[in-house]
């Protein structure tokens, strides 16, 4: 009864906390799915950049896959490679990072956190809680989802008196974020709120604030839902009152849906957007996974 | 007399039936050699005869392929890489063995630095270096970087390095090739002093007069074979030369040919100044051989490099066949038919890691290009011709330049410059490290060039060379041309007078 299928999973290399969460969950779900379906083979491959990932997709294809789950390191440059697989009639699930043209010609299923919403939720929270706040922003890497989040944030604070003092890239890297925050603290005598959109970077931001012993910063809004940050929210840390969810586990969701599409013939086409849930002290324990590396 | 002492003196170091091959090519054939305590032993032979190789084998830098080495009568295997120094054997390499980034003091003490409590005793080492240099009469600054030294000064540092070791045996591989007379005689004074204290020397040189003057015995090698060992006193220059070459040598210098007074001026140098050179002017006619003499550091090389476009001129004009050559443009000078052969063959003349062909044609690739691509057969023909013309002898046709014998490198360099077929050629130290036989060939070659209507500037520290070849001789001193001698004026005394600053006359 159990048919033989192969699912290829192509994800970015663990180049920061969030992506390492992706790798963790992909491997975890791969094992789980293979245990559930004896005939199923799941191959997980990581790649450091877009061009390499295009090759990885090709290699997976060479190995004879029936479905592809891909979280592109940089979406637009991967469209052609994905299409090649898709055009052979394989099932394609795209995760998280969407290309500018994200329609049925590229993929069957799109699973994502809501990037614009991630920015918007953060923006709204800040606008509500501190309507006249002066905010500094630390951006990620210069790739489209980062831009989407920025745009979402601007939408979230629109109409309020929240003022963005500065935006600089922190590359989703804690050491870089530490530096940028240190310099913000030098540059601006008064900062109310920091929006750094990523929990990894929040680690650096918090250290910089602590070192400068500055008390004007009221709080920091990060994002993704790493266990460390969710823990802080849960414990009522004053500087981290909330976190915006953007769970790396979404890759697992996509894999489970793909397996379902192969085995159960259930219709799983279309968009599957996870909410950019605001993690607060009240709901935090629902999002706390102490075993995850992220 | 020293000869008698040496006769009875015990043998310190000897070679028994030494053979040496480099990757299958044999360069020493069963050579025997004895060095006695307190003697100065000359090692002579043509370029590529195997002198340097023998010296390296006897100092541990190369291991013999077969045969044995005896130290104080006991067979030894000399440790490599200069470790034989511990046995009292040191060598002054023909190729400099100095690191450009170190200072003179650092070089002198490299590998045997003096420390106090683990800290370098820099003051002490500097003082010691100064002492050794002073003994040798060298003015080199002990703090100067090696890279800033002239080749003569580098040679002095090499010598100082060897002399400062407490050695029983010192090998000197052409130490005087780049030295002035004064420096040479200072060196000889030291060598004699040490010899009298019991140190033995092996002296490799192509300068017969020096060999006659300094050494107690002579060993001659030819094509890697031992030919003869005998006391210097029973030989004369000619017989040594004959032993080396295996034939009789006719007169060293060809007859001079004076160019016609009406012959066109092909090179006009007017009021050239550089950092060191002041207001140098002279002219060269078609078919003329003009010499440049002067003490070391008198600025001959700097002037020639300024003319050849290798240095920028601060002032002055260089006109070649009516065309003004822009300052600091080698290419322009080359195009006008002027070529310059450097005296520094190691660091400026040859690509040591490339083969003969790549070196030979480097400056004249345009001649070997057909429709933009190089023709290997044309290059090979050029190499064959150059080998014949300059008597370049190698046993392995694919050898890289760095492994050729010193003299053959020099010939290759000369051939390389001549490949450009220049109308005017400046040759800086044409015969440095070249054996007598080939010297003669080169002199005739230069003379033939002149008869052919080319003009040659010979810059040389060997006065006989300038005197024997040139119809006019310019003498430089401290950056100035202090005199130009013609005809009967050209003599050693006269040149010395100008060079030492005792006499001066307006430039021609």
């Amino acid at each position, binding site marked *: 009864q159990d048919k033989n299928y192969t699912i290829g999973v192509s994800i970015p290399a663990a180049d920061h906390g969030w992506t390492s969460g992706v790798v963790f969950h992909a491997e975890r779900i791969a094992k789980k799915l293979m245990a559930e379906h004896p005939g199923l083979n799941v191959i997980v491959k990581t790649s450091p*950049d877009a061009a390499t990932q295009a090759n990885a997709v090709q*290699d997976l294809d060479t*190995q004879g896959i029936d479905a592809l789950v891909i979280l592109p390191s940089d979406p*637009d*440059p991967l469209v052609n490679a994905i299409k090649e697989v898709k055009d052979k009639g394989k099932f394609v699930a795209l995760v998280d990072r969407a290309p500018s043209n994200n329609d049925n010609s590229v993929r069957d299923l799109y699973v994502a956190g809501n990037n614009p919403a991630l920015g918007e939720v953060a923006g709204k929270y800040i606008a509500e809680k501190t309507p006249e706040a002066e905010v500094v922003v630390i*951006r990620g890497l210069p790739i489209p989802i980062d831009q989407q989040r920025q745009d979402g944030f601007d939408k979230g604070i629109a109409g309020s008196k929240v003022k963005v003092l500065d935006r600089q890239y922190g590359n989703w890297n804690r050491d870089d974020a530490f530096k940028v925050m240190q310099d913000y603290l030098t540059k601006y005598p008064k900062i109310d709120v920091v929006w750094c959109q990523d929990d990894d970077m929040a680690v650096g931001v918090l250290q910089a604030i602590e070192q400068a012993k500055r008390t004007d910063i009221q709080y920091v809004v990060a994002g993704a839902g790493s266990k460390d940050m969710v823990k802080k929210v849960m414990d009522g840390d004053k500087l981290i009152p909330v976190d915006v969810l953007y769970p790396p586990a979404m890759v697992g969701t996509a894999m489970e849906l793909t397996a379902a599409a192969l085995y159960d013939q259930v219709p799983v086409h279309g968009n599957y957007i996870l909410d950019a849930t605001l993690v607060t002290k009240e709901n935090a324990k629902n999002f706390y996974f102490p075993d995850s590396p992220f | 007399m020293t000869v008698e002492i040496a006769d009875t003196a015990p043998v310190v170091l000897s070679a028994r039936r030494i053979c040496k091959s480099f990757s299958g090519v044999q360069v020493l054939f069963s050579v025997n050699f004895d060095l006695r305590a307190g003697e100065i032993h000359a090692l002579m032979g043509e370029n590529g005869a195997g002198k340097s190789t023998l010296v390296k084998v006897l100092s541990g830098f190369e291991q013999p392929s077969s045969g044995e080495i005896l130290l104080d009568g006991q067979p030894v295997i000399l440790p490599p890489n200069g470790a034989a120094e511990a046995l009292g054997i040191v060598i002054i390499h023909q190729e400099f063995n100095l690191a450009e980034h170190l200072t003179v003091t650092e070089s002198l003490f490299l590998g045997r630095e003096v420390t106090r409590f683990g800290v370098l005793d820099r003051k002490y080492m500097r003082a010691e270096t100064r002492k050794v240099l002073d003994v040798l009469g060298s003015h080199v600054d002990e703090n100067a970087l090696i890279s800033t030294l002239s080749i003569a000064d580098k040679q002095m540092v090499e010598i100082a390095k060897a002399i400062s070791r407490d050695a029983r045996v010192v090998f000197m591989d052409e130490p005087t090739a780049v030295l002035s007379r004064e420096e040479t005689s200072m060196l000889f004074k030291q060598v004699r002093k040490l010899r009298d204290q019991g140190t033995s020397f092996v002296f490799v040189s192509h300068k017969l007069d020096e060999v006659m003057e300094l050494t107690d015995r002579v060993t001659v090698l030819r094509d890697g074979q031992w030919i003869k060992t005998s006391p210097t006193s029973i030989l004369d220059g000619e017989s040594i030369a004959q032993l080396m070459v295996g034939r009789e040598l006719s007169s060293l210098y060809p007859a001079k040919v004076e160019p016609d007074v009406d012959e066109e001026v092909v090179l006009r140098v007017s009021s050239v100044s550089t950092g060191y050179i002041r207001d140098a002017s002279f002219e060269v006619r078609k078919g003329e051989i003009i010499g440049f003499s002067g003490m070391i550091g008198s600025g001959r090389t700097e002037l020639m490099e300024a003319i050849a476009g290798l240095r920028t001129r601060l002032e002055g004009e260089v006109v070649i066949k009516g065309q003004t050559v822009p300052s600091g443009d080698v290419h322009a000078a080359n195009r006008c038919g002027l070529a310059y052969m450097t005296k520094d063959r190691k660091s400026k003349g040859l690509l*040591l*890691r490339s083969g003969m062909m790549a070196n030979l044609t480097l400056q004249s690739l345009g001649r070997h290009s057909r429709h933009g691509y190089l023709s290997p057969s044309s290059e090979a023909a050029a190499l064959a011709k150059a080998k014949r013309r300059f008597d370049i002898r190698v046993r392995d*046709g694919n050898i890289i330049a760095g492994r050729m014998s010193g003299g053959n490198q020099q010939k290759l360099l000369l051939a390389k410059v001549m490949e450009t077929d220049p109308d005017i050629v400046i040759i800086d130290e044409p015969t440095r490290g070249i054996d007598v036989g080939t010297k003669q060939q080169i002199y005739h070659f230069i003379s033939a060039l002149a008869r052919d209507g080319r003009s040659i500037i010979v810059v040389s520290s060997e006065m006989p060379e300038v005197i024997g070849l040139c119809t006019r001789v310019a003498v430089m001193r401290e950056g100035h041309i202090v005199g130009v001698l013609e005809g009967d004026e050209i003599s050693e005394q006269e040149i010395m007078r100008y060079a030492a600053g005792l006499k001066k006359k307006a430039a021609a």
Partner: protein
Amino acid sequence: MSVNEETREIRRRSWRDVDLRAVAPFAALALLLIVGALVNPNFIGITNLANVATRCAFIAIIAVGATFVISAGDLDLSVGSMVAFVASLMILLINSGVIADPVLMLAAAVLFTVVAGALCGLANGLITTVGKIEPFIATLGTMGIYRGLTTWLSQGGAITLRSSDIQTLYRPAYFGNILGLPVPIVVILVVTAIAAFILYRTRYGRHVVAVGSNSDVARYSGIAVNRVRTIAFVIQGLCVAIAVLLYVPRLGSTSATTGILWELQAITAVVVGGTALKGGAGRVWGTICGAFILELVGNIMLLSNFISEYLIGAIQGAIIIIAMLVQRSLVRKS
């Protein structure tokens, strides 16, 4: 042994020497092929090998340029960013649609790309030679500049080829075949053949090697050292442009992260191929082999299913070292 015999013997022996050093990277390659075949039977299939050869095109072509720069004794760290920058310019030009006819537009864009690449290379060359700045620093600077300009052009996002007409037209430049060979492989071969010709058979090539092995000797031989070095940088720029011409139809889009670390890969390919970083000798075919080796290692990792994802980097590193050791011992033994 007569003199003649002797010469022949010598020639034979030294040819062996030369050949072996040049052959060494190919030996390492053969070894990898064997390892690969053991790891996964699909590996040795013609499709897979063609895939690998095809995709090493970008790095291989860039590395051919790097062979010139390195032979001349320099280094270019900016090539990865240059790819991003030049590709961005190309796509922006096409997107601007200044020329209505797609064929003409494409032709103009190709020309423009080549010129842009050459100019970027020229900039590197002039800063290094006229500015007399260590090439490492000079090109690290331009690396920042090209990448920064790309970020700025893309406003932090991606630049994507819009016209589907042109995309269809242009696609075969990467995905097509010529005489049964994928276009990128043909391009690699042609570029390498031309490069080998220039390096080994022209005056300029000799000058490059001379400058790289001793620039003083080159200068005293009347070679315009700075010009030779600058031209090497321009050649590097041209190679980058050619890589871009293949990159754009393949990926159709660029962003500020395009080509990150490609400079390192290109240099590695050059060195694995047997060219010394110190300059003075270039092995163009070795470079291609090096690029192929690097890509193969990644491919084998991907096709092997028993290595933890986390350890791939480590194994890759180990394989490179082992491959080099094999190479060395081969050269030494013989």
